[in-house]
């Protein structure tokens, strides 16, 4: 179990380093960087590489935003395999919904509960 946590730490850390290089060297905005990483996750799943990556790295692969791309593509491909091309539209959000739903729900709850403070970090 400790080993899985260490692997998650190292792999997750490395994915974030890639993101940091996109920020500082490529000078991309956070929105550009995250969009790029999501697409990368999607393409890797197209090649069948992301699921083995999850098997190896656990949370190191499911927590970075790349896993959104993987989930969306995985859901789409599963349905397309079963029902043909229309599966692309029906399958996409089946597998990813927890992240997006949670963000929306907690966004609304957060808006009820909190007020922004302009403190320097």
């Amino acid at each position, binding site marked *: 179990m400790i080993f899985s946590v260490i692997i998650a730490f190292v792999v997750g850390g490395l994915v974030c380093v890639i993101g940091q290089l996109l*920020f500082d060297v490529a*000078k991309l905005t*956070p929105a550009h960087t995250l969009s790029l990483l999501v697409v990368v996750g999607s393409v890797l799943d197209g090649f069948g590489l992301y699921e083995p990556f999850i098997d190896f790295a656990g949370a190191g692969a499911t927590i970075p935003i790349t896993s959104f791309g993987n989930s969306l593509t995985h859901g789409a491909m599963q349905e397309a395999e079963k029902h043909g091309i229309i599966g692309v539209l029906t399958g996409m959000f089946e597998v990813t919904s927890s992240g997006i739903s949670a963000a929306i729900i907690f966004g609304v709850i957060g808006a009820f509960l*909190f007020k*922004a*403070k*302009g*403190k*320097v*970090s």
Partner: protein
Amino acid sequence: MKNARTIQFVSKPSIVSTAVAVGPLEKQSPFHPHFDLIYEDERFGQETNEKGHAQLIEETCRLALMKAGLQIPDIDLFLAGDLVNQMTPTNFAARQLTTPFMGMFSACATSVSSLITASFFLESNHMDRILFGAASQHNAVERQFRYPIEYGAQKPPTGQWTVTGAGFGILSHHISGKPFVHSATIGKVIDCECIDPLDMGSAMAPAAFDTIQQHLAQNKGTSYDFVMTGDLGKNGYTILQELIQSSGVSSYLIDNYRDAGAEFYGKDKKFLSGASGAGCSASVYFGPIYAELLAKQWKKVLLVATGALLSPLSFQQGESIPCIAHAVELWME
């Protein structure tokens, strides 16, 4: 071509009073002894940042009036601006103040552009007392130009912190014992194709350089206690020094350049390259600098407020950042 950019105000309009109010974070500024009001609440008792911004402007203006022993009907014109869309905080404050009003937009250079315009009105002798100045509120400006306050974006070392502060003054006909406006130079828009909105200092330094060069050329022989730019920040200040040094313009002044933004928060590295915002130059020029002129610590200072004339949309559309700098020369006899 007539060189009308630089003007000497022969009537020597005097700044009879000023008032500066700031938010809680600004308490740590080395300039804080000269801030009239330091609020604990960054929203100044209002529910939204924008309403708080308007409240800040209104209260600071009323304080300037009180310090001059004047009432609202004594004011002939209110000239002011801020950084928010359509300058609504200033518009709403003007509604409360009920004076005749003209909004002024020069981004962070509004503190000086409003003073220059006020000087022209007084020089024409049509008006007697004009309320001028500028303000900014950190949260309202950040939301507009950058990200939501609680968003965890990482600012680079060239980033600056928008000041929550307001600086206003009352300009009137010359009286002795008060600092007066001797001359001014109006800026031109200068664009050196800087595209990074997280590095305003680099974008604004050429505009400051252009205005300073112009003003010094028209005022040869004047020796200033210092030249103080508005909010180039530590990075922009370094670049301006380099521009001045390599151009050979009045090199004797090199040691006497200051920047309000670079000095505003002291040495605290959390504020990265320093302060910015319309309230930065306004609170420093009309707070400590005015007080020091009044106390005869300085005799002649050149204040060059700088502004970046971009919008979040222009950045998204891939435009560069055009900038401007307005200069005003204050004397004390």
